[in-house]
């Protein structure tokens, strides 16, 4: 009788889940099914659907700009994983230290960029990198490094690296907060014992903190992968995918194909491919990060 009081019936539980499930179904499942369906058609408006079978997918595999965009996405994932999670881990260890003062203030300041609009961040950083009037160019010229000043966002060999900088800057705080909350669950006595044994901050971070928050870091990695696979606003604001296709990513390419060229069938095929690739990468990361028992470590 006591169990019945505290554990609702399965019917009631299901009933509470129905509204959320309906929203999830309408917002996620239905568009996904429609995108898959439309990917087998060629059309630019709903009055003129022409079934083309796998033609759009054949075009996708043969389209070199898809592979260029995918390569750029992979570049973003690798650099941002190292930058965002790596720097966040270091900062989390610093903020978790006994010696740091006003830790909550620092945490708030570091989290602040996460709250900004991606478009605003993109525009601000494109002003920072401006060849003529940007802060970076001004500082380099003032220090006598005039030759080092380049149109970084206008050169194919530097654009991707400089696009990564605002992405890293903006989302360090996001991962920092997640890592910090995981670190609070580590027993302080472990650190005390390590200090007694002579462990430095670096050794504590590598041999205590890192193994104990591995699960959380795995989550951070998956979030980083999914965020950088769907990055769009920063690229549009800073470079519009240029010069040429040097900074194009899958989301930008899909958008241009769909709405600038009204090739909605091919755009749908691109978005399905996008979904498959992202799922595959996340699945792969879960496999690599799991132990022999299949648990995420």
């Amino acid at each position, binding site marked *: 009788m006591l169990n019945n009081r505290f554990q*609702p019936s399965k019917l*009631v539980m299901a*009933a*509470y889940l*129905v*509204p959320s499930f*309906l*929203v999830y179904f*309408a917002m996620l499942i239905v568009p996904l099914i429609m995108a898959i369906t439309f990917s087998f058609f060629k*059309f*630019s*408006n*709903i*009055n*003129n659907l022409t079934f083309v079978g796998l033609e759009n997918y054949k*075009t996708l595999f043969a389209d070199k700009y898809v592979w260029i965009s995918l390569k750029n996405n992979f570049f973003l994932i690798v650099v941002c994983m190292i930058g965002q999670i790596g720097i966040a881990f270091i900062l989390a260890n610093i903020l978790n230290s006994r010696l740091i003062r006003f830790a909550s203030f620092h945490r708030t300041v570091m989290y602040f960029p996460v709250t900004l609009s991606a478009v605003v961040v993109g525009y601000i950083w*494109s002003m920072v990198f*401006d*060849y*003529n009037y940007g802060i970076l160019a001004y500082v380099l010229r003032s220090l006598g490094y005039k030759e080092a000043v*380049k*149109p970084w*966002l*206008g*050169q*194919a060999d530097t654009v991707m690296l400089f696009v990564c900088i605002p992405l890293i800057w903006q989302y360090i705080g996001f991962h920092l907060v997640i890592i910090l909350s995981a670190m609070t669950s580590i027993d302080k006595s472990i650190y005390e014992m390590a200090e007694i044994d002579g462990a430095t901050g670096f050794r504590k971070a590598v041999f205590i903190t890192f193994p104990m928050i591995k699960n959380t870091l795995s989550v951070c990695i998956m979030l980083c992968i999914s965020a950088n696979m769907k990055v769009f606003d920063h690229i549009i604001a800073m*470079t*519009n*995918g*240029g*010069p*040429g*296709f*040097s900074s194009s990513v899958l989301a930008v390419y899909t958008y*241009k194909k769909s*709405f*600038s*060229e*009204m*090739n*909605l069938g091919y755009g749908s095929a691109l978005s399905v491919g996008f979904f498959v690739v992202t799922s595959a990468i996340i699945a792969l990361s879960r496999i690599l990060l799991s132990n022999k028992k299949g648990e995420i470590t």
Partner: protein
Amino acid sequence: MIKPRKMTVLVIMLCLLLVAAACSTSKKTGSQGSNSSVQETGETTSGTKDWTKENVTLTVIHEHTAEVAQTVASSRMYLRVQNEFLDAYPNVNMEVTALGSSEVFERLTVLAASNELPDIVYLNKVVFDAVKKDNMLLDISDYVDRNFFRDNLNTFSYNGSVYGIPTKYTTYNYVYYNSKLWKEAGYEEFPKTWDEVLEANEFFKNKGIPCIIFANKLPFFSMTSYFNAIVHEICGSDWVDSLNSMDGNANFTDACFVEALEKFKTLRPLWNPDFISADDQWAVAELAKGNAGAHISGSWVAGSIISHESVNPGISDIIRVAKVPTFSGKEPTVDYAVPQGIGLNAKLANDEIKKQAAIAFIQWMGSDRYSKYMAEVGEMGPVEVKVDQSGLKQMQKDMFEVMNSHKNVPHFVYRLHASVENSVQSSLSSFLSGTISAEECAADIQRAYEAQKP
């Protein structure tokens, strides 16, 4: 007190009701064009009712926000003409959604895809290409005169029928040059050949400023400001017409097109190093500040330079306009485009009163009013009008002189699908930044061209 189980049921029913309400849509009566018998709103009249005596509501989405109208003459004049129509016909209520220029066509392409266009359809090439074959626009051939318009209404025509009128007529590839600086360089007028310009480049390099400031952040500038004229010069207008008719006699991989690309690249030393990421408005400001020898752009720049008078007095007298140079010394072409226009939703055929009001609106917008107002500020309109040049700056007079004394030709991809134009712009950007060769650039564009061949 309500028992917990009943409370649970009530809460769930409320949630389901909320979800159902949020997901419900108003019933739409579909229309597949002028042959549909489904009625849109009200009764289909026999045409005997006078539309000027009925209350009519027309919907439109356009880019002419009040903020933009303060600085952009074309927006200001569009709103002026629109409001004059509404004053003349107070029975007409216009429901306007004004969006930013980058948003308006995104919205319209989505609406076009779902066949939910507004009554007055703001058109660009992409939207028009998406809807022209599918009876989504009303045929207005009987209500407008082709000969009245500079482009003969070719831009928004399909299969011999007219579906839209231009609301902008833009000419490109004018050289706005700082006459004072060029005089110092030893040139009373802007050079007529690119070789002369390249020779003059040394003077500007010594001054530490670009000879010609170029801004290709929006990649259509390379096409409109330079490359159109180069293609017309090197390949000829017949080749361009053949390319657009897709008769198989002209391809992007032809030697003349590759030569045009190679010639284009020889102009790189004239430009600022950050031309790929520079913004055109910034480039105009730099010219106005005296930080560049010249800038090649469209007819709207004259107004922008005049607006810099308050910051740099006298600048609009120093800046002059010349025709773009050529490689061979022969006369260049002046490229024009009709970037925007308006058409009517085909669904209006089901409501005679609304249709008549909309046709009256399009005829009003297609009159010479707009072009006259644009001429007052020294800019072009889609209809040729007599321009009283007495109040214009010398720069504006130069521009009219160049436009009227040179053959006006459309862009070299004027009839091709938007995907080909996009491919041209992106490939040109890659080519100019040095990541691909001229042959690769031509091959990329040819692939997009062949994908559109019937």
